Every structure is written in C-alpha cells, then in structure tokens.
C-alpha cells in the first residue's frame, strides 16, 4: 500500500505534529503512515480522507 498523506500534508503547509493533533494520534504515527510502515485502521483512514477532503481511495492506493 502507498499513500499521498505526506504530499497532501505538505501542500497544506502542515507539520506532522499539526496533522497528528487534528487526527488525535501521535506524531510518530503520522510519520509511520506516511512512510508506509503502518497501515491505519479503516476509521483512521476515513478520518484522514475527510480531513483532506478526499475519498479514502484517493489517499491510499495499492500501486504508486
């Protein structure tokens, strides 16, 4: 699985800490999601999509 979380976050000039605060998770967790080490649960993936105003499949995708 790959995702565009880092790109979307940087487009909005947010730090990992800012995004973490919005999603109620830790900064390390945002970093782990961005680097693909951690696959978020469906509720968290939905929250990430909602935060960026996108559908989940626009943020997370199987291929690059």
């Amino acid at each position: 699985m790959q995702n565009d979380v880092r790109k979307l976050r940087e487009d909005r000039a947010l730090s990992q800490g800012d995004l973490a605060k919005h999603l109620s998770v830790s900064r390390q967790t945002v970093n782990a999601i961005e680097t693909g080490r951690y696959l978020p649960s469906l509720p968290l993936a939905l929250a990430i999509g909602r935060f960026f105003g996108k559908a989940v499949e626009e943020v997370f995708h199987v291929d690059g």
Partner: protein
Amino acid sequence: MIAHEGELVNSVRSTFGRWWLVLFGVALGGVMGAADLAMNGSPSRAVTDLAILGGYTVVLTVFRGRSETASVLAGNPVDERWQAINLHALAAAGMIGAFVALGGFIAAEATGHDWSGFAIVAGAIGAGYIGGVFWFRWRL
C-alpha cells in the same frame, strides 16, 4: 491491556488516577519483599524488591506523558498504532513464553528435575491461546 479492559481495572484507575500503576507496583513489591524477608531474613533484599517494582512504575508514570513508549508500558497506548504495537508485543511474548516453557520442560525432564511448573505454564499458554481463538472468533 488492549481493547476490552476489565471493569475492575477501570474502577481502580478512576479511583487512584494516574498513580494507580505506582500503587500496584508498590503493593506487588511489598508482597514480594515481605516474602523475601520472611524467607531469607535479609531486609536489604526486601527493600530491593520494593525499590525495583516501585521505582519502575514511578518512572513509567512520570514519563508516560513525554514518551509514547512509556505510555504503552504503563498500559495507556496513545493511539491505534501504539495499541497495535502493544498487541503484537504481547502476542510475541505469549509465543516466546510457550517455547520457553516447552524448552524448560524438556530440559527439566532431561536433567531429572521437577518439570511440573513448566508443564503448567505451557499448558496455561496453550489453553489461553485456544480459548482466545474461540473467544475472538465469536467476538470479531
């Protein structure tokens, strides 16, 4: 503790707030220290037992606001990733514990020592695992 914590644990936590873990550590250290004192008659060993368990829980409680790792060890994972880390670490501990118990059983049997303790631990892990499979099969 992962997803479903017992009511007893929750009520202890709500009663003693963030210091419940320290109280638990001091209580456990006190019991072990008292047993050590009665068995060996050495106050220094009893104090060491109390200091190790009490100190460990004090350090975790003090640092859990600053360190996410400490928060997991204190039983309060900060988010779902840390819950997953905790879950996988517990599962790994269960598996390794099973192998240690089996290895200890074989070693004790081979050297003519009493193997019943290892057999009980291995049996408990096996029963816990099989029971867990049936429980979570129904719950998930």
